[in-house]
């Protein structure tokens, strides 16, 4: 017999179905919820409160410091502002040295130090007007803060780093292609914005691959499954964004960086190739390890979005609006149903096999 205390905790939907099937009365449901561990214990409640207070406190404090830097308060001289931030950075680092990870104080201190690094860079840019673009600030922040994140050995720290990297990439993808000197060079080679979207997608997929490689190793606790989902979602976001831009806006002259005429069609082909290879690799890896359906869902979401854009573009110039709206509605219903059917099939199969985490 399986012991409820050691068996995997059933999700709420299974408990709902179980209670419904047996038409359990309230005392039996109370016992069911207790046996299933469906309600957090007082210790778990306290752990959440402790963690929430610590994390919320550090984030609020650092947010306050960032607001302070942005306020550009004249009552404190520039040297004073630098001294203040540097003192905080030193204090956070010292706390991490005194109580190193995996102690929670050390993790929080290093997260604080990573965030303060960004504030310090922002103050530097604000003070000396370096002329750097905002994306460069975020990129420098990610680079300089990387040792702190590595030292923290904490998924939350890595999530903050991933967020900073992706903000940088999003700024670069959204604003810069076509105007930066880098793109003058690359544009001559027929590679424009699509290359950038491809790079952003591949970079996130590389991070996802690292998370996958860490699973089952001592680093698995650092590269939590939710962190892997975060980066694969970011990869899907860039892939979908790039593809939609390429399909719908490539002839729009008003948008910087998107003036991709026929001479740059090679960029679009490159993006398509990268997306196909990347999607195939994600699918193949996920189907082989059978741990999580999320990456397949992300690929499915990109396919639905790209299909919608292709259909809209194809029908937009050749048919009436009514026909286009009808076709798009039908496509979305059909494609999402098909995606749901495939995904649920995998969930059922992998759950039955016991491989789903």
């Amino acid at each position: 017999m399986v012991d409820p205390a050691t068996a995997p905790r059933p999700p709420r939907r299974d408990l709902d179905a179980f209670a419904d099937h047996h038409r359990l009365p309230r005392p039996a449901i109370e016992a069911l919820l207790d046996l299933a561990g469906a309600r957090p214990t007082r210790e778990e409640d306290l752990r959440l409160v402790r963690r929430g207070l610590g994390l919320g406190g550090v984030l609020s404090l650092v947010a306050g410091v960032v607001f302070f830097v942005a306020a550009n308060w004249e009552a404190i001289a520039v040297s004073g502002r630098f001294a203040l931030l540097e003192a905080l950075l030193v204090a956070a680092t010292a706390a991490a040295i005194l109580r190193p990870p995996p102690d929670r104080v050390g993790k929080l201190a290093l997260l604080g130090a990573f965030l303060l690094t960004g504030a310090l860079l922002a103050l530097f840019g604000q003070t000396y007007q370096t002329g750097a673009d905002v994306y460069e600030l975020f990129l420098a922040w990610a680079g300089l803060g990387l040792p702190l994140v590595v030292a923290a050995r904490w998924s939350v720290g890595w999530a903050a780093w991933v967020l900073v990297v992706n903000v940088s990439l999003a700024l670069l993808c959204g604003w810069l292609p076509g105007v930066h000197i880098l793109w003058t060079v690359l544009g001559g080679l027929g590679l424009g914005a699509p290359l950038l979207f491809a790079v952003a997608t591949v970079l996130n997929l590389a991070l996802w691959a690292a998370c996958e490689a860490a699973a089952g190793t001592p680093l698995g606790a650092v590269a939590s499954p939710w962190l892997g989902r975060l980066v694969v979602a970011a990869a899907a976001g860039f892939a979908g964004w790039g593809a939609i831009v390429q399909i719908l806006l490539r002839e729009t002259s008003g948008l910087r960086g998107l003036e991709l005429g026929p001479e740059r069609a090679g960029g679009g082909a490159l993006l398509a190739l990268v997306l196909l290879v990347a999607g195939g690799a994600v699918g193949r890896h996920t189907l082989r390890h059978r741990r999580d359906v999320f990456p397949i869902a992300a690929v499915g979401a990109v396919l639905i979005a790209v299909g919608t854009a292709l259909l809209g573009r194809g029908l937009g110039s050749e048919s009436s609006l009514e026909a286009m709206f009808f076709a798009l509605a039908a496509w979305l219903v059909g494609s999402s149903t098909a995606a749901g059917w495939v995904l649920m099939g995998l969930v059922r199969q992998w759950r039955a096999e016991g491989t789903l985490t």
Partner: protein
Amino acid sequence: MTTAPRPTAALEAALRQRGLLPDPLRALPEPGPGRPWFVGALLGISGWLAGLFALGFVTLAFRPSSTAALAVLGLVLLAVAFAVFRTGEGAFTEQGALALSIAGHALLGAAVYVGTESGAATAWAVAVLNASWIAVVPARVPRILSTLIACVAAGLSMRLLLEVDHHYLRGRQEEAVPLARALLGWTAVWIPAAVGARALVATEARWMAAGLQRVLRPVLTGLLIALALASPASHPLDGLAFWETAAQRTSWLALWPLLSLAAAVWALWLAHRVRSRALMGTAIAGALLHVFHFYALLGVTLLAKSVVMIVLGLALLGLAAALRRQEAP
């Protein structure tokens, strides 16, 4: 192929031992489809978008302009959607019905607006319509969506009702809505939502015993998503602005996102109580968005906001330290 034991099998055995299973001869239920949250999100977002395109198709094909025409068309679509939900089998028909129902709701909302020319009345009607739809529609994703839309519509309606001078129509040069009135508008919607979600969590066993889990589970999910993300719907219009083009004036409205932050933290707590990591993640994402909103608003100086955040941070860290000391042996 090995087959993993079902987690509920152990529970059934344990309940049998305690004599708590009323009918020990009934067979164990087959495991349900167990749809993960992201599959539900994919279906919900796709269905919602499909509904908007269906709305475009129906509007262009039938060109309804009067209240009656809009209402009849909306009711027909809702009736068809309801019939398909009740009788249709399979995910395809359910997705199609979801799209039709969204188009139907939009048309009925448009009918109320054309008939009353009142934003508040329209928002109330949308809230009531969605609340009613929750009771009748026999599917999970539409119930979650309707709960979310009902909360947003209730927030908007209360705000529009209280802004009797239609401040929002006259542009941003006018005076901001009075603090007490705006606070009343926020609390009248989101405090009941927060209390309702708490009540659903506290009485979970009771409504499961009454066989209401198919209705109240998605309602709880929708309420928690709304608390995490949707409370800015009740912000006074100026509170939703990011970068002022006019002179930067001092206004309490810039502190408004802190209320949303509190709602998201409450959603986080309740999501923890029902052990939903997906909802906890949604609440955390909502809280971070509200902090960014707080940063971006310019009604209060950044210096003042900096002080608010630093004091809040120190208070939270102090509480964490006190808790740690209390627990230390």
